[in-house]
Each structure stands twice: as structure tokens, then as C-alpha cells.
């Protein structure tokens, strides 16, 4: 490479080049992360996310945050330490939700005709905002893991409650009580998903009163802290720029 020549002809062009790369990098990052995060999330917590009659007070609340804090932690590790951009979690969740919404609308509804009020995704946005802002304000991975990770678990249920509450209104049907979400699962036939596959609360222990959601959220937040640490290091590893020599292969 000839170092004497310049790649750009003016400062204005340099700025334009830099800005154009911003958009192209953002586009690629957004969609690759969307793809990776979506496949990860749908295969580790997908069924809870697909169907309203899986969105219970215990397992959904526990599993969804734990498996979904992974990519945000990893992407934050790259974007913050290398660029001081506190948007890692937000990019992940915006990508995931876009991918999910397109799919639920175009395919769950548009191809196989499940009503959207039965197959809408979970809302992860409040947790993502908190994770990013905590990283910005504290500038610390440990703080983000502990406070952000816990918040990620804790706010999941409140963030979704306004969306799912109407579906938890009880109804009497043929002599049995259902929630409307249960009835959706019964009415809208899923040929490939019999009822026994559904993993929802069946416990009997009510140590903390009648509602298990806060306990589940707290436990989920606790595990999310650990997962955050782990995935933050994954993120740092994935952000490496090392080369291996051709001979090593």
C-alpha cells in the first residue's frame, strides 16, 4: 500500500465516507444480530413467545429473560468498550422484535391463520432500555450485570402485563373455567402442539402468597446476572480481531 497517497480527497469526503460506513455497518450488524438472536431465542424460549397460552406466571417469566439477556450482554460488550455506544441491548431487542413481528404477522397469521392476539411476541424493550442506560450511567460491566441483569428479570413481567392481562380474564366454557388465553389454545387448533407439550405453572407451593410471578421474576433476574457476566465475556471474545496464519489450518 502506498502510504503517501490519501484515500479521500477532502475532509468533507472523509466525513461522508465515515458516515456511509456507519449506515452500512449498522445495517449489517442489525440484521446479522437479528438473525442470530432470533434463532437463539426461538429455540430456547420460543414456544413461550409464540403462544398466549404459554405466557404464564412462572416458567415464561423465568425462562424468557434468562435466555434473552444473552445477546444484549454480548453486543454491549463490543459496542460499549470499542465505541462507547450504549445501544447494544436496544439494537438486539429492536432486531428481535422486528423479526418476530414480521413473522407473526406474515406467517403465523398470513400463512397459517392463527389470530395475532394469540401469537404476539413478548415485550423485551423496557429491560433493554434499562440495560443500556445503566451501562451508560455506570460505565461498568459489573454494575450493568448486577443491577441491569436483575432489572432485566424484574421488569419483564410488568412490561408484558398490560399486553397479556386482558387474556387472563376468566371465562366459563362448557362447565369449566378457563382464562381467555387457555381458550385460545383450545379453540385455535395447533395440529402439531398437543396440550401436554405446554410448559406452564402447575406448582402447588405458594410461599409468597397467591402470586408466583414476583418470585419467578426475582429468580430470573438472579440467573440473568450470571448469564450477563458469561455472555459479556462471550461478546468480548466474538469482538476480537485476531488473525490465524494460513499455515495453522
Amino acid at each position: 500500500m502506498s502510504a503517501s497517497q490519501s484515500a479521500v480527497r477532502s475532509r468533507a469526503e472523509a466525513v461522508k465516507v465515515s458516515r456511509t460506513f456507519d449506515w452500512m455497518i449498522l445495517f449489517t450488524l442489525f440484521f446479522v444480530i437479528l438473525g442470530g438472536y432470533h434463532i437463539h431465542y426461538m429455540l430456547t424460549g420460543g414456544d413461550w413467545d409464540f403462544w398466549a397460552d404459554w405466557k404464564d406466571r412462572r416458567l415464561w417469566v423465568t425462562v424468557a429473560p434468562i435466555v434473552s439477556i444473552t445477546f444484549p450482554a454480548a453486543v454491549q460488550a463490543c459496542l460499549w468498550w470499542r465505541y462507547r455506544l450504549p445501544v447494544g441491548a436496544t439494537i438486539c431487542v429492536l432486531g428481535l422484535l422486528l423479526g418476530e413481528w414480521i413473522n407473526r404477522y406474515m406467517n403465523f397469521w398470513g400463512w397459517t391463520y392463527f389470530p395475532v392476539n394469540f401469537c404476539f411476541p413478548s415485550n423485551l424493550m423496557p429491560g433493554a432500555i434499562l440495560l443500556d442506560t445503566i451501562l451508560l450511567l455506570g460505565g461498568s460491566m459489573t454494575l450493568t450485570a448486577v443491577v441491569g441483569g436483575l432489572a432485566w428479570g424484574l421488569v419483564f413481567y410488568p412490561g408484558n402485563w398490560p399486553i397479556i392481562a386482558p387474556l387472563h380474564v376468566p371465562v366459563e366454557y362448557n362447565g369449566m373455567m378457563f382464562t381467555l388465553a387457555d381458550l385460545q389454545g383450545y379453540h385455535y387448533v395447533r395440529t402439531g402442539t398437543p396440550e401436554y407439550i405446554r410448559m406452564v405453572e402447575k406448582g402447588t407451593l405458594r410461599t409468597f402468597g397467591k402470586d408466583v410471578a414476583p418470585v419467578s421474576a426475582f429468580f430470573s433476574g438472579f440467573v440473568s446476572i450470571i448469564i450477563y457476566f458469561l455472555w459479556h465475556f462471550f461478546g468480548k471474545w466474538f469482538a476480537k480481531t485476531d488473525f490465524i496464519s494460513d499455515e495453522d489450518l
Partner: protein
Amino acid sequence: MKLIKDKVAKLSFVALLVTMTAAIFYTPTASAHGEKSQAAFMRMRTIHWFDLNWSKEEVAINDTMSISGKFHVFAGWPETVDKPEVSFLNIGIPGPVFIRAGSWIGGQLVPRSVSLELGETYDFKVLLRARRPGEWHVHSMMNVEGGGPIIGPGKWVTITGSMGEFTNPLTTLTGQQIDLETYALDSIYFWHAVWYAIGVAWLLFWVKRPMFIPRHIAISSGKAASLISANDKKVGMAFALGTVIMLGVTMGTTNEKYPVTTPLQAGLMRGIKWIEMPATTVDVKVEDATYRVPGRAMQMTLTITNNGDSPIRLGEFNTASVRFLDADVLEDESGYPDDLLAEEGLTVSDNSPWAPGETRTVSVTASDAAWEVYRLADLIYDPDSRFAGLLFFFDEDGNRQMTMVDAPLIPSFI
């Protein structure tokens, strides 16, 4: 000229968008079905469906039809399929073309999984309400945990009308009248849109400034601190606090709006009632059984003893939902699907009535193209080459007795 060119380009782009949108949403209604690949031994030795009735062959949107009948849980259940301790009475239709308005086993509503007993016979009914027009294959179906879907016979049913007319009205226990098809949809869209917009706003706040290259240069030259301003932190704080406050407020208003909510209902249902079948007075012993590949026929040598007090004849052999009838003894009047009915498919070497107390060995042949069409002939390639089925005997008054056969099958290739 350029103006025209621009216009053409614009119009073409619009046309492209319209075409693509139309393409994506175009989904005509036509269908087939998909049960033939199930291993033959699984269809023959698990759940035997009989006395089935489809109440209608054509049904308008919002109207109901039912599929009802009986199923026998085979005592010789194969080892490779988990026992039906956790089972779900499903319906074999291509997704929600009907809604399942009700399903019952032994008169008990079964919206959840149930525990079934081997060797018992149950009656069932599934009530369906038409939702999406088209011609659909409607099967009875039992899902068994660790075994998968066990599909019964299917019949074509036509749904007429338009899906837009479908409604699913309900009254909740709080007295609210709703249409479950569209219920709460607005609020689902609204809350997701609001939170998504907040996320986009946060991203835009950072994206509107130079991002990757200049920030990398700043950090690598030790100026990382300059990248986050006091204002950035203020905005961050506002977003964080705003999020927490919004969560608190929306949680509160939601609880006000929906003061009564219940957890999802789940749990296995045990103690499902079976039918007390009349005691069988016929004893059947399978001496041997062969499947003749070229003739598409199964031939059994049976030693049959009539321990009852009235003469009987063999009328039907039912396996994997295919019914082989001896036309002299039995005629089907239930409208059973043609492709699963061999009206003259059962030949008995001597089907004169067995007198009370009589024992006679006969050769019974069940032949029909269904062996091939329904891939039952593939039994000879299964890792557990046994067959099983139900035999129905009739006395002069038309009284029916049911017995099971279960024996190894030897293929014959010549």
C-alpha cells in the same frame, strides 16, 4: 422526457410493491392430508377408531359440525411408543381452519391432557366450528406423549363462506362480551408500538451522531471520556426513569382495568370413563398370518370358537382405520370415507354361522388397494413386524361383538 422516465420508474416501483404485497398475502384454499407415513404397526397397534361419524360434509363459516365415535386403546401397545398415560384428544386438521368448540371423552370435556387405560374402549366427540373456507381433510387424532400424533380416519369436509365473517363471541366471567378472534388486538399493537418507538428513539439519539470510525479513533487515542457528555447522561437518566415510571403506571392502570384475572389453567385429567363393552363370547386364535405383496392381501388362518348362545358370523376386520367388510354380513351405512372402506374386501373361506359351542378353523383374506395406498403393506419393513386389528362378529339380530387380534406377520413375495 426525464419527467416521464421518473414517473415510469416511480410507477414501476409502486407496481412492484403492490405485486409483492399481493403475492405475500395470496393464499388459496385447497389441501390434502398427511398421515400415510406413520409406521403401519403404529397405526395398527395403538388406537383403533371405529363407529365414526362426521355429522356434515359441507358446513358454512360459523356453523358447527362434529366428529364422534369410539376408540379402543389397544392392549398390545408397542414398546416403541410410550403408553398413553398422557394423551390429548386432538383433531387432525390443517391448523385453525375450524375452531375446536368442544371435545369430550366419555361425556367429560377434555380441553387438557388425559390418562387412558390400555385395553379399554372410550367414546368421544369433537365439536368444530368452521372458520376458513376450503376443502379440508378432517381426521380424528390422539396425541400421546412420547408417541406423537396417532391419526384416525379422515373425511373431506367443505367449508363455504368467507373467513371475514367468522366471529368467536364469548361472555367472560366478569360479564364482558368479546369476540376472541380480535379481542385485545388493539392494545397488543398499541403497547408493542409504544415500546418499540421508545427503543427507536434511544437508538436514534446515538445514531444521529458519527458512530463507528470516529469513535474508534477517539478511543484508540485515549479520548474515550470525551464520547459521553453530561447531556448524554441526563438523557440516559430520563430514559431509565421514564421506563421505570411507565412500567409502574401501566401496571397500575392495567390492574385497575382488569381487576379479575386468573392464572392459566393446566393439569392432567385422570379417571376418564370408558365404555363397559359387552363381554365377548367369541374366542379367536391366530394360527398364522401372511401378507402377499403382489396380491395386496393379508391372509390369516383363524381358529374361532363361539362360546355364546346364538350363531355368529364374521362381518368386519378393522385395522389402521381401514375397514374390510364381508358384504353378505355387513353393509356400511355410516358414510365412512370410500378410500378407507373395502366393502367386499373380506373373504372368509367358510363364513356360515358358527353355532353355539362350535370351533372352526377358517382362512380369512383382507384384500384391497388400501394396503398400498395407505402404506400398510410397509408393515413388512417395520422393525416390529406384527399386525393387529379388530374383528367384528354379528349374530342374526345384528348384535355385534368385538375381539382383538394381534400376531406376527410373515411377508410372502411370490
